[in-house]
């Protein structure tokens, strides 16, 4: 499996989508930095309350992280959808699978390599967003809480990666990409409905959000990461009720569910790829 991980890491580094993604990410961080600078400057007027600056800063942080979910999600889906099916479609799998490499090693090695890349990418991205927001708004965030939040955020693209690998193990790259994006969108919409449901105190809307989180727990993990990163300040803040916050903070059970979810999805990916004809 070690060789598959090395091979896949090299493959990802040569992908144009990753190079474009890095350029777009740098542009995004520049834009976020400029926006944070002017935003902090405009509220830094004499007489403004420090807590108000903290609220706006926290709002910017959650917004930055929320947009980061799109970047991380896109990276995970666009690269992961062709992880296995791309090899089958191009025929390179014939050279690899005919060698003494087991199919579980191929699936596991590829998933691990993509997980490493997306985890590093998401850590750098949300870490940079947190640094920018922290610098411009002088955010009082507990370092341990922030690091825990970033650690949780890493799970977000891994969920989508697992789904992409499940599809890629059985279907074409195109079909996998489309379906995984739709599931990603479902999770986002479900998250929004749940947020609005909490604000309106509408149990049905909250339940819709919970069900969508069970189908694809990516948005729930994002909300949990945001909540954990902000620590007590985020939970007590009024801005947690905004669209990017976590008015309804997912429980630790959701974290366990997400981990089990990834294991089960990957178990099916192993099974499907193991039975596939090349």
């Amino acid at each position, binding site marked *: 499996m070690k060789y598959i991980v090395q091979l896949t890491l090299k493959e990802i580094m040569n992908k144009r989508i990753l190079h474009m993604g890095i350029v777009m990410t740098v542009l995004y961080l520049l834009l976020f930095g400029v926006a944070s600078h002017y935003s902090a400057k405009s509220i830094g007027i004499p007489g403004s309350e420090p807590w108000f600056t903290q609220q706006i800063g926290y709002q910017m942080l959650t917004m930055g992280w929320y947009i980061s979910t799109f970047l991380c999600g896109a990276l995970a889906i666009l690269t992961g959808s062709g992880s296995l099916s791309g090899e089958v479609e*191009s025929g390179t799998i014939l050279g690899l699978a005919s060698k003494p490499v087991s199919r579980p090693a191929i699936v596991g090695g590829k998933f691990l390599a993509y997980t490493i890349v997306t985890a590093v990418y998401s850590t750098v991205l949300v870490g940079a967003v947190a640094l920018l927001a922290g610098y411009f708004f002088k955010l009082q965030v507990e370092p341990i809480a922030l690091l825990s939040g970033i650690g949780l955020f890493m799970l977000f693209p891994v969920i989508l990666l697992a789904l992409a690998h499940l599809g890629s193990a059985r279907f074409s790259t195109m079909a996998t990409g489309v379906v995984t994006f739709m599931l990603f969108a479902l999770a986002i919409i479900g998250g929004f409905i749940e947020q609005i449901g909490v604000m309106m105190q509408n149990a049905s809307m909250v339940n819709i959000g919970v069900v969508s989180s069970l189908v694809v727990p990516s948005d729930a993990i994002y909300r949990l990461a945001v909540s954990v990163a902000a620590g007590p300040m985020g939970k007590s803040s009024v801005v947690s009720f905004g669209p990017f916050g976590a008015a309804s903070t997912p429980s630790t059970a959701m974290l366990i569910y997400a981990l089990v979810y990834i294991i089960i999805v990957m178990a099916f990916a192993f099974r499907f790829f193991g039975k596939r004809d090349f």
Partner: protein
Amino acid sequence: MLIETYNLSKQYEQNTACHEICLSIKEGQVFGLLGPNGAGKSTLVKMLLGLVYPTSGQARVLGFPAGHQKAKKQTGYLPELFRQYEWLSAAELLQLYARIYEIPASQQKKRIAETLQLVGLQGRERERIKGYSKGMQQRLALAGAILHKPALLFLDEPTSALDPIGRREVRDIIALLSNNGTTIFLNSHLLSEVEMTCTHLGFINHGNMIDSGPVEDFMQQKHEITIVAEEVPASMLNRWRLEKRFIAQHDQTYTLAVDNKEEIPLLVEALVAGGSRIYQVESIQSGLEEVFMELIQD
């Protein structure tokens, strides 16, 4: 037996790729599998490599079930679709394969250099595969198949992208490997290539194995001779016609059918006794193309 299959079948939704194929290939054979497009040749090879799962039947390769890791370790495969990781160089690709095949680190560099030289890619190993021609990519795929000196080598259309020089080089490589004891399973459309390289043949059509055996058995199925002779008596010609031995006559050249080789000196004796002067006697072997067409059309 290095390869043994029993009633090996692969059924796709509406298409039978292979139907109850029974095949035995011994160590050291160069087995050529012939058949028209879509006959099931590549599917059969893929089943033997564990790349395609059979619907029914059994296959053992090198004493292990088809697709077993231990069998794969001693097997090489050049697929018909020989796409490689284009973002790697040939040296990087072969290095990866060397590690997968667990070739000792101390031998890897030497083995890679030797193999690249054998397939004619020495000096180009640092270039990205993306810039290779199709022929070069096929040569590289062959290098990947023989790098670990396999006991069994599957070649699926190994010269499809090569020029005549490349084809000859591949034939030489096959001969070299065969002389070194490698058992070779060759799928090819090029009958002349198969005729020159194989010791045994199998014919497959519509997923059915029609016939298989040593090359000589197929080449000697048809016994014909040509005799160039003067003053052949009319009585002799009539006798040949009655015996349904007469096939054709062009001037002094007669084409006759014989049941076996032993009949040839008897015919010559009879002609000499009848006063004929014989200038040439030649035994005609039927070409593989003719055998192929007959078997496939049957």
